Protein backbone atom coordinates (compact mmCIF):
# COMPACT_ATOMS: atom_id res chain seq x y z
CA UNK A 1 0.00 0.00 0.00
CA UNK A 2 1.41 3.37 -1.05
CA UNK A 3 0.42 6.47 0.93
CA UNK A 4 0.47 9.87 -0.77
CA UNK A 5 0.05 13.32 0.75
CA UNK A 6 -2.82 14.44 -1.41
CA UNK A 7 -0.40 14.96 -4.22
CA UNK A 8 -2.30 15.01 -7.49
CA UNK A 9 -1.96 18.72 -8.20
CA UNK A 10 0.61 21.39 -8.94
CA UNK A 11 1.92 22.95 -5.74
CA UNK A 12 4.78 25.12 -4.59
CA UNK A 13 6.00 22.49 -2.13
CA UNK A 14 6.72 18.86 -3.01
CA UNK A 15 4.29 16.06 -2.29
CA UNK A 16 5.28 12.88 -0.48
CA UNK A 17 4.86 9.21 -1.15
CA UNK A 18 5.72 6.37 1.20
CA UNK A 19 5.20 2.67 1.58
CA UNK A 20 2.96 1.37 4.37
CA UNK A 21 2.57 4.63 6.26
CA UNK A 22 6.32 5.15 6.49
CA UNK A 23 6.86 1.82 8.26
CA UNK A 24 9.58 -0.59 7.16
CA UNK A 25 8.00 -3.59 5.44
CA UNK A 26 9.39 -7.06 6.05
CA UNK A 27 10.17 -8.89 2.83
CA UNK A 28 9.69 -12.59 2.34
CA UNK A 29 13.26 -13.81 2.64
CA UNK A 30 15.51 -16.28 4.40
CA UNK A 31 17.00 -13.39 6.36
CA UNK A 32 15.03 -10.71 8.30
CA UNK A 33 15.12 -8.11 5.53
CA UNK A 34 13.03 -4.92 5.73
CA UNK A 35 12.37 -2.28 3.08
CA UNK A 36 11.50 1.42 3.44
CA UNK A 37 10.54 3.70 0.57
CA UNK A 38 10.05 7.46 0.70
CA UNK A 39 9.82 9.86 -2.23
CA UNK A 40 9.13 13.54 -2.60
CA UNK A 41 7.77 14.61 -5.98
CA UNK A 42 6.18 17.43 -7.92
CA UNK A 43 3.62 17.56 -10.68
CA UNK A 44 5.22 19.57 -13.48
CA UNK A 45 4.22 20.72 -16.94
CA UNK A 46 5.95 18.65 -19.55
CA UNK A 47 6.01 18.87 -23.32
CA UNK A 48 6.09 16.04 -25.80
CA UNK A 49 4.48 12.64 -25.81
CA UNK A 50 4.45 12.34 -22.03
CA UNK A 51 2.84 15.77 -21.51
CA UNK A 52 1.21 17.96 -20.64
CA UNK A 53 1.96 16.89 -17.04
CA UNK A 54 4.31 14.46 -15.40
CA UNK A 55 5.47 13.38 -11.97
CA UNK A 56 9.05 14.42 -11.21
CA UNK A 57 10.91 12.92 -8.26
CA UNK A 58 12.69 15.64 -6.24
CA UNK A 59 14.06 13.52 -3.40
CA UNK A 60 14.11 9.99 -2.04
CA UNK A 61 15.12 7.76 0.83
CA UNK A 62 15.25 4.02 0.19
CA UNK A 63 16.54 1.72 2.93
CA UNK A 64 17.12 -1.97 3.47
CA UNK A 65 17.36 -3.10 7.06
CA UNK A 66 18.59 -6.35 8.50
CA UNK A 67 16.62 -7.29 11.59
CA UNK A 68 15.39 -3.66 11.80
CA UNK A 69 18.96 -2.28 11.79
CA UNK A 70 19.95 -0.22 8.76
CA UNK A 71 22.03 -2.13 6.26
CA UNK A 72 22.12 0.38 3.42
CA UNK A 73 20.18 3.51 2.50
CA UNK A 74 20.07 5.39 -0.77
CA UNK A 75 19.39 9.07 -0.29
CA UNK A 76 18.83 12.20 -2.32
CA UNK A 77 17.51 15.22 -0.49
CA UNK A 78 18.55 18.34 -2.43
CA UNK A 79 16.04 20.58 -0.66
CA UNK A 80 17.00 19.33 2.79
CA UNK A 81 19.34 20.83 5.36
CA UNK A 82 22.32 18.59 4.73
CA UNK A 83 25.41 20.10 3.15
CA UNK A 84 25.57 17.07 0.86
CA UNK A 85 22.89 17.34 -1.78
CA UNK A 86 23.95 14.87 -4.47
CA UNK A 87 22.55 11.34 -4.71
CA UNK A 88 24.45 9.06 -2.35
CA UNK A 89 24.26 6.00 -0.16
CA UNK A 90 25.09 5.22 3.44
CA UNK A 91 26.21 1.86 4.75
CA UNK A 92 24.49 1.30 8.09
CA UNK A 93 25.45 -0.51 11.30
CA UNK A 94 24.16 -3.84 9.97
CA UNK A 95 26.83 -3.71 7.25
CA UNK A 96 29.38 -4.18 10.07
CA UNK A 97 32.07 -2.06 8.48
CA UNK A 98 35.62 -2.53 9.62
CA UNK A 99 36.32 1.17 9.02
CA UNK A 100 33.63 2.90 11.06
CA UNK A 101 34.12 6.39 9.60
CA UNK A 102 32.78 5.07 6.33
CA UNK A 103 29.40 4.62 8.01
CA UNK A 104 29.07 8.39 8.29
CA UNK A 105 30.36 9.11 4.80
CA UNK A 106 28.24 10.01 1.79
CA UNK A 107 29.10 7.44 -0.85
CA UNK A 108 28.23 8.93 -4.25
CA UNK A 109 25.97 6.90 -6.51
CA UNK A 110 26.85 8.85 -9.65
CA UNK A 111 23.26 9.85 -10.26
CA UNK A 112 19.76 9.14 -9.10
CA UNK A 113 18.98 5.58 -8.16
CA UNK A 114 15.72 4.02 -9.31
CA UNK A 115 13.52 2.15 -6.86
CA UNK A 116 13.82 -0.81 -9.23
CA UNK A 117 17.53 -0.97 -8.40
CA UNK A 118 16.69 -1.26 -4.71
CA UNK A 119 14.25 -4.07 -5.40
CA UNK A 120 16.87 -5.93 -7.44
CA UNK A 121 19.32 -5.53 -4.56
CA UNK A 122 16.71 -6.90 -2.17
CA UNK A 123 16.28 -9.96 -4.41
CA UNK A 124 20.03 -10.40 -4.57
CA UNK A 125 20.12 -10.33 -0.77
CA UNK A 126 17.52 -13.07 -0.59
CA UNK A 127 14.06 -11.51 -0.96
CA UNK A 128 11.60 -13.79 -2.74
CA UNK A 129 9.73 -12.08 -5.61
CA UNK A 130 5.97 -12.67 -5.67
CA UNK A 131 5.91 -12.95 -9.46
CA UNK A 132 8.04 -15.02 -11.80
CA UNK A 133 8.22 -12.13 -14.28
CA UNK A 134 9.58 -9.68 -11.70
CA UNK A 135 12.76 -8.90 -13.63
CA UNK A 136 10.84 -8.16 -16.82
CA UNK A 137 8.53 -5.80 -14.90
CA UNK A 138 11.44 -3.98 -13.31
CA UNK A 139 13.15 -3.63 -16.69
CA UNK A 140 9.99 -2.14 -18.21
CA UNK A 141 9.27 0.36 -15.44
CA UNK A 142 12.90 1.36 -15.06
CA UNK A 143 13.12 1.82 -18.79
CA UNK A 144 10.33 4.37 -18.59
CA UNK A 145 12.09 6.10 -15.69
CA UNK A 146 15.33 6.30 -17.66
CA UNK A 147 13.58 7.52 -20.79
CA UNK A 148 11.56 10.31 -19.22
CA UNK A 149 13.66 11.62 -16.37
CA UNK A 150 15.34 15.02 -16.80
CA UNK A 151 18.99 14.90 -17.81
CA UNK A 152 21.34 16.59 -15.37
Amino acid sequence: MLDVSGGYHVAERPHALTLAGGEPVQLQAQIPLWLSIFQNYRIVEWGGARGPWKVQTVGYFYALELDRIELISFQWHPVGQSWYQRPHLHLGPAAELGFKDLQHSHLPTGGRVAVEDILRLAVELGAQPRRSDWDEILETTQGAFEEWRPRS
Partner: protein
Amino acid sequence: MATVEHDAHVREQDPSEGRALLDRQARRYLDMSGEEFTHAWEAGEFVDREDSAVVRVAMLLPFGR
Protein backbone atom coordinates in the same frame (compact mmCIF):
# COMPACT_ATOMS: atom_id res chain seq x y z
CA MET B 1 6.08 1.48 -24.38
CA ALA B 2 4.79 -1.68 -22.70
CA THR B 3 2.15 -1.44 -19.99
CA VAL B 4 2.76 -3.23 -16.72
CA GLU B 5 -0.19 -4.78 -14.93
CA HIS B 6 0.17 -4.58 -11.15
CA ASP B 7 -1.87 -4.94 -8.00
CA ALA B 8 -0.50 -1.93 -6.12
CA HIS B 9 -2.88 0.19 -4.08
CA VAL B 10 -2.57 3.92 -3.46
CA ARG B 11 -4.13 5.54 -0.40
CA GLU B 12 -4.45 9.33 -0.46
CA GLN B 13 -4.12 10.66 3.07
CA ASP B 14 -6.38 13.56 4.02
CA PRO B 15 -4.73 16.36 6.04
CA SER B 16 -5.58 14.90 9.46
CA GLU B 17 -4.43 11.42 8.45
CA GLY B 18 -1.27 12.93 7.00
CA ARG B 19 -0.49 14.81 10.19
CA ALA B 20 -1.06 11.63 12.20
CA LEU B 21 1.33 9.72 9.92
CA LEU B 22 4.05 12.36 10.34
CA ASP B 23 3.45 12.49 14.09
CA ARG B 24 3.70 8.71 14.45
CA GLN B 25 7.02 8.49 12.62
CA ALA B 26 8.52 11.58 14.33
CA ARG B 27 7.73 10.05 17.73
CA ARG B 28 9.10 6.66 16.71
CA TYR B 29 12.39 7.84 15.22
CA LEU B 30 13.10 11.14 16.98
CA ASP B 31 11.01 11.04 20.16
CA MET B 32 9.20 14.25 19.34
CA SER B 33 5.81 15.12 17.90
CA GLY B 34 5.29 15.81 14.23
CA GLU B 35 4.47 19.42 15.04
CA GLU B 36 7.65 19.78 17.10
CA PHE B 37 9.68 18.28 14.27
CA THR B 38 8.13 20.61 11.71
CA HIS B 39 8.89 23.70 13.79
CA ALA B 40 12.44 22.53 14.53
CA TRP B 41 13.04 21.72 10.87
CA GLU B 42 11.78 25.09 9.70
CA ALA B 43 13.98 26.77 12.33
CA GLY B 44 17.01 25.02 10.84
CA GLU B 45 17.72 22.95 13.93
CA PHE B 46 18.67 19.85 11.95
CA VAL B 47 21.40 21.43 9.83
CA ASP B 48 24.06 19.38 11.57
CA ARG B 49 22.05 16.16 11.73
CA GLU B 50 22.98 13.69 9.02
CA ASP B 51 21.42 10.54 10.38
CA SER B 52 18.84 8.48 8.57
CA ALA B 53 16.19 9.06 11.23
CA VAL B 54 16.07 12.77 10.42
CA VAL B 55 16.01 12.21 6.66
CA ARG B 56 13.32 9.58 7.01
CA VAL B 57 11.01 11.90 8.97
CA ALA B 58 11.86 14.96 6.86
CA MET B 59 10.70 13.10 3.77
CA LEU B 60 7.28 12.93 5.41
CA LEU B 61 6.95 16.68 6.02
CA PRO B 62 4.48 17.12 3.13
CA PHE B 63 2.06 14.91 5.04
CA GLY B 64 1.95 17.49 7.82
CA ARG B 65 1.15 20.47 5.62
